[in-house]
């Protein structure tokens, strides 16, 4: 297959990176949820044993 693009730099587009702020917020919320549930059961453990 012809590959006319060979040798052309792929990173010439300097257009600004899309913002991933929502992704950052989402993974923080996710991490927060993991910690809260884990601590919830942990305190149950501490309480019982």
């Amino acid at each position: 297959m012809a590959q006319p693009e060979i040798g052309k730099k792929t990173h010439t587009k300097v257009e600004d990176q899309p913002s991933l702020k929502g992704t950052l917020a989402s993974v923080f919320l996710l991490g927060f949820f993991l910690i809260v549930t884990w601590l919830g059961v942990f305190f149950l453990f501490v309480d019982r044993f």
Partner: protein
Amino acid sequence: MNTNSMNPKVDRRDGKLTMAHFYVAFIALAIGGLAGLLQTLVRSGKFQLPTWTGYYQILTLHGVVLGLVLTTFFIMGFQLALVSKTSGTFTRKQRLTGWIGFWTMTIGTIMTAIMILTNQASVLYTFYAPLQAHALFYLGLTLVIIGSWIDGAAIIMAYTSWRKANPGKPSPLLTFMSLVNTLMWIVATIGVAATVLFQLLPWSLGLVDRVDVLVSRTLFWYFGHPLVYFWLLPAYMAWYAIVPKIIGGKIFSDSLARMSFILFLLFSIPVGFHHQLMEPGIDPAWKFLQVILTFLVVIPSLMTAFSLFATFEMYGRSKGSTGLFGWVKKLPWGDARFAVPFIGMLAFIPAGAGGIINASNQLNQVVHNTIWVTGHFHLTLATSVVLTFFGISYWLVPHLTGRVLTKAMNKLAIIQGVVWAIGMTFMSGAMHAAGLLGAPRRSSFSTYGGSEQAAEWIPYQIAQAVGGTILFLGIILMLYIFVNLAFFAPKGEEEFPVGEVADQAEKTPMVFENWKLWLGITVLLILFAYTIPFIDMIQNAPIGSKGYKFF
């Protein structure tokens, strides 16, 4: 992604092979769903099974048919379709190999089913010794595994011929992912094959009298944890590489996807002890090591979450969304091919949180062998994975049968997903709660001699029955849609969506295709995690146990 070998359409002959796998999978869904409904009804205390059957027979049927048969058949069929689509139509030899695999698995499934239905194998789907089933039950399961290896051989052959034809190029992403899952499966099933062939079969045939329970359970869980990743990775394939195409976006990064699959291959196997944390006979130091390795699997899981959020946000922003979460509104909520797997992704948040709890030694003492665990894997397997499989079926089945998903069916499919989510919220939520209050899993209804604590569980058991009934409705809907798409939907062309990589993504390095390296590290990690504990177990072995048949 490499498009030069990509088929616009899966070849009809390869499509038939995948559909054969799917027929068995959906028959399994029908049978297993009915069993599940009965279990929740029995556990509510308001319903009794007829005398010719019993709770443990039904539960064995449910676990085997859904946990082992539905999953293995669907996954093998799906992966065969992925490889045929992205690496080119199978050769005659490869296709024949696939059919031999399919029939071997099917014969094994029938043997196993007969043993369960005639009540000669009510040992639950984990078949722990010293419960002893009829030898044909073990033999049937062995055939299922051997058949899956033969299916796997077809995938490996197709991969190898693609690489030969395209020297120096990374394989198509979906072929790569199918191959990783196949390799992981082969390495993992060696453990269960070993306990079945060397311990359980000779013992059930009466050739030996006693069995070493700890060795057998350890070999089972050497397989049992990668088993759950074998279920999960095909869902990840759809999330990473197919859902982006469905929403009209791009794969966030090809390399990140490959990297996370390789990490699953490395860290899924040397971690079986996290299922045996409460078991005597294993040195806590080795349990500790395997728990550390378990927590390493959290990394690729969080990478997946990040990558999915990023895919969705990049797509939403390209459509002009603003604000922190404006992109959520831009997603195609009216498209079942997206919405149903998305419900699965959402379920993976509480599912993952539960998993981290299960794997933590002290917290495991709170939830071990309680119905919490059942609640957990009905989120991971019976929601995240299964809803993604349903979402895949909504386009793959019509693609393979030359039909289309109509507007009406699309709508019904979304309803199906929502019904499932509601039913599972009730059932799994109540299971988690009752489990924290100490309710045991794998047990029929009992008031435990009027115990006060057991009385606390009953309202949750009724909630489980409500959820189970709603879920059963969801299963009927799914079966209806499947039959429609396989046999009755209007003829046409349904797209097989394969994602393309975002322009900004880095080029994929070839190191990911270095199987000597990855399999080498896999084996080293396994040897490191298991050799000394195994020597301990064998050197200090008790005389072993005779078999018990309580059915």
